[in-house]
């Protein structure tokens, strides 16, 4: 009604167009009426003779209250003011959502408050302010309503709470509620309350301290006398003890003293402390101890119990916890422990009560008195000396026993073991002497070696070398370098032993290398010797080597040298090198190789036959100790007699300037024809690589054959026309190709085959079963590995949509995975199948166990349902009985490699409408059914 006030005049203070505020009520021109006359009748400013009644025009329609027909909009009885929810776009401060409740009874708990204020709105936070010392309520509470739903709602709740909850009586006190937006009111009230409390407490504390000081003074005097007497007695006792038994170890003595002290203290305690009733009551002489005191006001007796305190201090090594009505006393042995405890636990909470600790230190004199009882006594000089010596001797004995065990007995035992003749295999003999040389002191070493029955040949040579001709001990370093690779495969102690020889050799070598370098310096002008040394660390065959090698040669019949070698010998004597030899690729026209030859030239001039000997030696050496290298080297090594090989040159020549110098240096040399220089270089590098001198990465290696290079007769795959690429080949370059069709016979050599595995297992089982009890044997028979689910993963498959792939190698006959799904009857399965087809689930995940039981993995099942069909499967599905229930388990039908897709034969019955098979196996039947 009044929702449509048609211009209420009162609201317009000064209507500007008042004059014109006329309404034509009667117009004779529209319809003439006798009674009203010819003049038009106006109504001025809403004033009429029958007073105007304003009506809501909508009410003329009787059906209006039903609302607009066929519209969901509800009928509004009155116009509503639009209200906007407070959000991030709103202007102005957020409406307050917090209230502050005060004048609460201290008995009111937070839960009670929450219960009462929950009725106004969701409470997000309720802070009942507690006294931090006692944990009791201060009677102040801050409640904030949850703004999660909307801020306005929280604000409303807060307003409602202020309106309705003020004056509410809780536990006998009328609580007061005010809006407290930022919590400042609460904060202020709390601070005020705390100040009051703390002032009270401080006052009390001061009083107590005063009292304590007084008491302490009295006690101090008393104690002083007591202590004086005690010390006197102690000293007498001490002196007596020392004089009587100067051989008694001091710790024992001190123990005695301690116990004596304790006894004394005990007596003292007992005499003074008759009040002592139980363990927890405070001892009388508490003032003499170091303790931490917790005032009783912090630990209200109804809330904090003895056990709580004990638990609170459990991490510290306190001596005891005592309590009386003043509070708790936690005593400590040492001041340090007490203070650390004090620092960590002060102002912490026990049962919601903040405890203030008070550290009490033992009186100064007492402390110094206590300290030495923990340590050794201070003694006069002479006594100290004697006791110190006895202590030292005792320690020495202990150490000596250890020394004798380790340094004398250990090696001795080995030595003894060595000396026993044994029917041992070669391997042990090899190990034995090595060990002994490692462990036995130097003087015994030769003896041990000499007692050996015999040694492996190469070892003997090294040893004999050392003993007989120390100068010859430098074995060809290159040789050793080549050996080293093999050596690394041997046990560690063996390696270690070898290393010692190596290092001793290399020291010599370095010296020699330096000597040699000096010689070189004179000849190869402008060459940096340091660099040469770097790149040719082992190329220092010198006269000693020569000697040795000559000797070596003498021992070997010359006829055993290959003919090629003798060729080489001739060549090497002529300084202009090996070009004529068809076996060796020669240095060349281009700048690098001549340099090599130049280098070599210098060397050869000095010692012409060395290179020959080295090559020959190498060959023989390998054939001799067959344990190191089987067969001859794949390639002969042209660099054997060259100082710097191609890599070395490449390493040395860093820029054009270097190259220029090299050219200058080699200008006098004749160039050799080496054909294509690139090919020449390649051959040298490959040589080096095959000899194992460089790692694979450094040398050029052809990409390994991948197995699917097809040589097209027309020269291009495009012009080949149509041809079928076999599946096996395809699978190698199509990543999604089913790998199950690959014949993996060649790969199986490297890894442990399932057969080996089986054999090993059987052997193990047989071995154990013999010796074990029947129960344990049973345990063993159940091989957990066999039943373990394998690591599998599903992914896009070449065969059909998704497939299951092995993420680890699976051995034949191992369980792969169980086919899990809902177990249903045939009837239901039929229905479901129809439903699935209608739903558009084209794939069938139904697995028949027998006539009436079917496993449906469509909606509920594991990843086994992704396994595809293949006509040449790598898995097989078996139905086994586990605890009387039939289960479908997929087993590996052959060894499956990591990454292969798992397949099994679905064995669908034949049907009229065929499902095409996409397995791609050579033996594919074409259809699943």
């Amino acid at each position, binding site marked *: 009604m009044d929702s449509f006030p048609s211009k209420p005049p009162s609201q317009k203070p000064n209507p500007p167009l008042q004059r014109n505020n006329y309404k034509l009520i009667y117009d004779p021109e529209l319809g003439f009426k006798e009674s009203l006359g010819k003049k038009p009748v106006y109504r001025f400013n809403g004033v009429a003779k029958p007073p105007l009644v304003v009506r809501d025009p909508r009410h003329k329609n009787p059906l209006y209250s039903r609302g607009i027909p066929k519209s969901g909009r509800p009928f509004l009885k009155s116009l509503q003011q639009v209200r906007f929810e407070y959000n991030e776009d709103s202007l102005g401060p957020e409406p307050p959502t917090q209230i502050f409740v005060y004048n609460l009874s201290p008995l009111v708990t937070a839960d009670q408050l929450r219960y009462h204020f929950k009725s106004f709105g969701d409470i997000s936070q309720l802070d009942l302010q507690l006294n931090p010392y006692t944990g009791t309520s201060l009677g102040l509470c801050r409640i904030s309503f949850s703004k999660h739903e909307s801020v306005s709602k929280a604000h409303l709740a807060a307003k409602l709470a202020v309106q309705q909850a003020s004056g509410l009586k809780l536990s006998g006190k009328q609580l007061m509620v005010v809006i407290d937006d930022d919590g400042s009111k609460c904060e202020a009230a709390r601070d005020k309350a705390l100040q009051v409390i703390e002032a009270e407490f401080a006052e009390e504390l001061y009083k107590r301290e005063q009292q304590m000081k007084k008491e302490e003074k009295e006690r101090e005097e008393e104690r002083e006398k007591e202590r004086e007497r005690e010390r006197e007695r102690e000293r007498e006792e001490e002196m007596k003890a020392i004089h009587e038994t100067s051989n008694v170890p001091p710790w024992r003595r001190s123990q005695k003293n301690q116990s004596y002290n304790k006894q004394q203290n005990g007596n003292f305690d007992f005499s003074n402390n008759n009040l002592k009733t139980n363990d927890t009551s405070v001892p009388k002489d508490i003032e003499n101890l170091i303790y931490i005191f917790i005032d009783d006001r912090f630990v209200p007796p109804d809330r904090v119990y003895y056990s709580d305190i004990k638990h609170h201090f459990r991490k510290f090594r306190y001596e005891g916890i005592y309590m009386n009505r003043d509070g708790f006393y936690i005593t400590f042995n040492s001041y340090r422990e007490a203070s650390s405890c004090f620092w960590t636990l002060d102002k912490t909470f026990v049962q919601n009560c903040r405890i203030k600790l008070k550290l009490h230190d033992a009186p100064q004199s007492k402390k110094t008195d206590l300290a030495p009882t923990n340590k050794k006594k201070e003694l006069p*000089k002479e006594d100290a000396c004697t006791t110190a*010596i006895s202590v030292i001797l005792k320690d020495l004995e202990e150490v000596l026993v250890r020394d004798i065990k380790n340094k*004398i007995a250990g090696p001795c035992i080995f030595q003894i*073991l*060595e000396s026993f003749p044994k029917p041992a295999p070669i391997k042990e003999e090899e190990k034995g002497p090595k060990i002994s040389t490692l462990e036995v002191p130097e003087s015994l070493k030769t003896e041990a070696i000499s007692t050996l029955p015999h040694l492996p040949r190469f070892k003997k040579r090294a040893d004999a070398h050392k003993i007989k001709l120390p100068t010859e001990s430098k074995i060809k370093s290159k040789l050793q370098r080549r050996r080293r690779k093999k050596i690394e495969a041997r046990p560690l102690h063996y390696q270690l032993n070898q290393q010692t020889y190596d290092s001793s050799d290399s020291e010599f070598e370095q010296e020699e290398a330096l000597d040699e370098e000096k010689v070189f310096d004179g000849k190869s002008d402008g060459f940096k010797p340091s660099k040469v040394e770097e790149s040719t660390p082992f190329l220092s065959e010198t006269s000693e080597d020569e000697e040795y090698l000559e000797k070596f040669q003498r021992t070997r019949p010359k006829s055993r040298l290959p003919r090629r070698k003798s060729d080489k010998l001739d060549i090497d004597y002529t300084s202009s090198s090996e070009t004529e030899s068809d076996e060796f690729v020669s240095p060349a026209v281009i700048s690098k190789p001549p340099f090599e030859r130049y280098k070599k030239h210098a060397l050869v001039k000095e010692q012409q036959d060395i290179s020959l000997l080295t090559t020959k030696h190498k060959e023989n050496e390998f054939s001799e100790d067959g344990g190191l290298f089987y067969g001859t080297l794949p390639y002969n090594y042209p660099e054997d007699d060259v100082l710097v090989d191609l890599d070395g040159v490449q390493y040395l020549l860093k820029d054009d300037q270097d190259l220029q110098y090299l050219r200058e240096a080699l200008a006098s040399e004749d160039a050799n024809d080496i054909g294509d220089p690139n090919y020449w270089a390649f051959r040298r590098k490959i040589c080096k690589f095959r000899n194992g001198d460089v790692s694979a990465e450094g040398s050029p290696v052809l990409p390994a054959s991948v197995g699917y290079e097809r040589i097209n007769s027309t020269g291009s795959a495009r012009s080949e026309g149509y041809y079928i690429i076999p599946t096996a080949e395809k699978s190698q370059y199509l990543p999604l190709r089913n790998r199950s069709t690959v014949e993996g016979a060649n790969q199986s050599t490297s890894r442990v085959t399932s057969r080996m595995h089986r054999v090993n297992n059987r052997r193990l089982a047989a071995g154990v079963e013999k010796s074990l009890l029947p129960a344990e044997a049973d345990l063993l028979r159940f091989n957990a590995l066999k039943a373990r689910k394998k690591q599998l993963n599903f992914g896009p498959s070449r065969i059909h949509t998704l497939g299951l792939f092995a993420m680890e190698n699976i051995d034949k006959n191992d369980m792969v995975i169980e086919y899990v799904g809902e177990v249903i009857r045939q009837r239901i399965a039929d229905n479901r199948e129809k439903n699935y087809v209608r739903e558009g689930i084209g794939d069938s995940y139904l697995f028949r166990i027998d006539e009436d039981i079917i496993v449906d993995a469509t909606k509920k099942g594991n990843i086994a349902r992704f396994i595809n069909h293949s006509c040449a499967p790598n898995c097989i599905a078996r139905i086994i009985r586990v605890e009387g229930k039939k289960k479908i388990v997929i087993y590996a039908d052959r060894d499956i490699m990591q990454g292969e897709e798992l397949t099994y034969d679905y064995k669908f019955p034949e049907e009229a409408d065929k499902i095409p098979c996409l397995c791609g196996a050579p033996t594919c039947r074409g259809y699943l059914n």
Partner: protein
Amino acid sequence: MDSNKTVNVDDLVTRFKREGHFDRLRKLVLETFKEKESEGFAEQLRTIAELELEKDPSLKTKDHFRTAPLIAGAVDRTSLYENTLENIKNNILSQDKLRVNVLETIKQLCDKETEGHRGS
């Protein structure tokens, strides 16, 4: 008490060790032992080892690294070490020379210690 006249035994011992006298002593004793008594000791060891090997002939065929600890254990079980230690005590440690040596060093240390006290 007057700290100038007294010496803490513990401090003295640690000082003795820290300045390397202890290790020197240890080496010395070990050396003398090696020189004088190692033959007899080795002989005893040998008899024990032989006994042990007789008991279990399979030890002979085994790797030395395995047999050695076994024999060492057997030696531990005998009173060999105790006896040797007694021997050392009686023969080496009781030597007057050694005793006097140690005593002198300790006295020196003592003096140092007391000086240190005075300094502090």
